[in-house]
């Protein structure tokens, strides 16, 4: 495992090639991911994490492109993680967010990485949370995450980052859409992009009716036009303001994230157990043929899990 330590050292010194290689390894191998996290746990992370989320095609990547420009002109180092969907049918993906920000590809103060995400309503893959920790070691001042164009329940992103920006555009539906629970309640900043196409007044009115102050922070609503960099500057100012604001509920937020991470790992362990457990298929067969109900089947599997995995681990 000296190799991992070596890599971490090099990443700390700002080596992008190593950062890139370690991200690949972490994506491919959950065991290695675990080793990495165990090693860097508790290390101070400098970078502020800003998340851009919102429905497909609203202009998240286009806005991030300007945000990178403006931040790097201010002398900052910026890391970017772009998450795009992976086909559940072929496993393939076309990672295309990057096209909108290729002008930063050769900037030494920018690191951009595209990641595919399988069917996951949260719009980010599990490995992203761990990858963010590793990117945090590399001395970036900001780490920007773009999620898959999400539906309505992507709340988890608001746990992993310091500031969540929800990007919307005009003509996306009526006020009922805004009233639905989920992300609309969890963003720190709301952006109405494409405000050049008309209809932004109504969208803003709907948003105003549904966005409420939380813990002393009044989420601003900002209009932008992706083709006009000047409209993105007020967004950056608001992001900076939010990063300075001290959320009295910060600990709660962190605990919320930890809970999801605990559950993720339990889920992982359970999946790996089931993969190896021959009784799994047997029980599925049995339930499929009405031999028993699935609650009973799962309870019996759980008993095996307890006996085999938990007792064995104790003996080790």
């Amino acid at each position, binding site marked *: 495992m000296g190799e991992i330590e070596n890599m971490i050292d090099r990443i700390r010194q700002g080596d992008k090639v190593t950062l*890139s290689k370690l991200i690949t390894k972490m994506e491919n191998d959950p065991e290695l991911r675990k080793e990495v996290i165990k090693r860097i746990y508790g290390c101070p992370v400098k970078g502020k994490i800003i998340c851009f989320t919102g429905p497909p095609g609203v202009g998240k990547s286009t806005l991030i492109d300007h945000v990178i420009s403006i931040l790097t002109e201010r002398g900052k180092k910026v890391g970017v993680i772009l998450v795009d969907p992976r086909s559940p049918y072929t496993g*393939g993906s076309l990672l295309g967010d990057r*096209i909108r920000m290729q002008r930063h590809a*050769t900037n030494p103060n920018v690191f*951009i990485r595209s990641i595919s995400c399988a069917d996951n309503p949260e719009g980010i893959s599990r490995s992203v949370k761990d990858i963010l920790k590793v990117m945090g070691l590399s001395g970036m001042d900001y780490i920007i995450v773009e999620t898959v164009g999400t539906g309505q329940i992507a709340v988890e992103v608001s746990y992993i980052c310091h500031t969540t920006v929800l990007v919307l555009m005009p003509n996306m539906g009526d006020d009922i859409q805004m009233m639905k629970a989920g992300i609309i309640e969890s963003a720190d900043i709301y952006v109405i992009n494409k405000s050049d196409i008309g209809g932004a007044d109504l969208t803003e009115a709907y948003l105003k009716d549904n966005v409420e102050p939380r813990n002393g922070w009044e989420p601003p609503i900002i209009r932008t036009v992706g083709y006009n960099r000047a409209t993105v500057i007020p967004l950056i100012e608001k992001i900076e303001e939010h990063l300075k604001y001290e959320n009295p509920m910060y600990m709660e937020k962190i605990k919320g994230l930890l809970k999801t991470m605990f559950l993720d790992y339990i889920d992982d362990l359970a999946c790996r157990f089931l993969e190896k457990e021959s009784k799994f298929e047997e029980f599925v067969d049995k339930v499929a043929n009405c031999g028993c109900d699935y609650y009973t089947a799962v309870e019996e599997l759980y008993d095996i899990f307890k006996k085999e995995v938990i007792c064995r681990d104790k003996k080790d």
Partner: protein
Amino acid sequence: MRKRILIAKVGLDGHDRGAKVVARALKNAGFEVIYTGIRQSPEQVVETAIQEDVSLIGLSCLSGAHIPLFKKVIELMKEKGVDIPVFCGGTIPPGDVEILKKMGMKEVFGPGAPLKLIVEKVKKWVK
């Protein structure tokens, strides 16, 4: 194991149909494809390949400037100490194929190259 491939358009050439068609075929074959979009400098292509940690780079050029541009990409990689296999396509005159292969191209696919063949080759290279 995720298999990552970069499809890149170098130079001022705006013919992107071929690159997109190839990108889509590879995506449908289960690869993770990163597409750069048009008008990329060799520097941008190499930097992107490094940051995305791809196992293969596919270059596309229909402007006629393939030899100097592709050469620059390969030289830059050597300079940076990275060694990623490269293949290419576009309107490449038959006479240039050998030159490109000597330069280090794994394979050259001209107009009309069947997508099935391209995918088959890539599957052989990227395991």
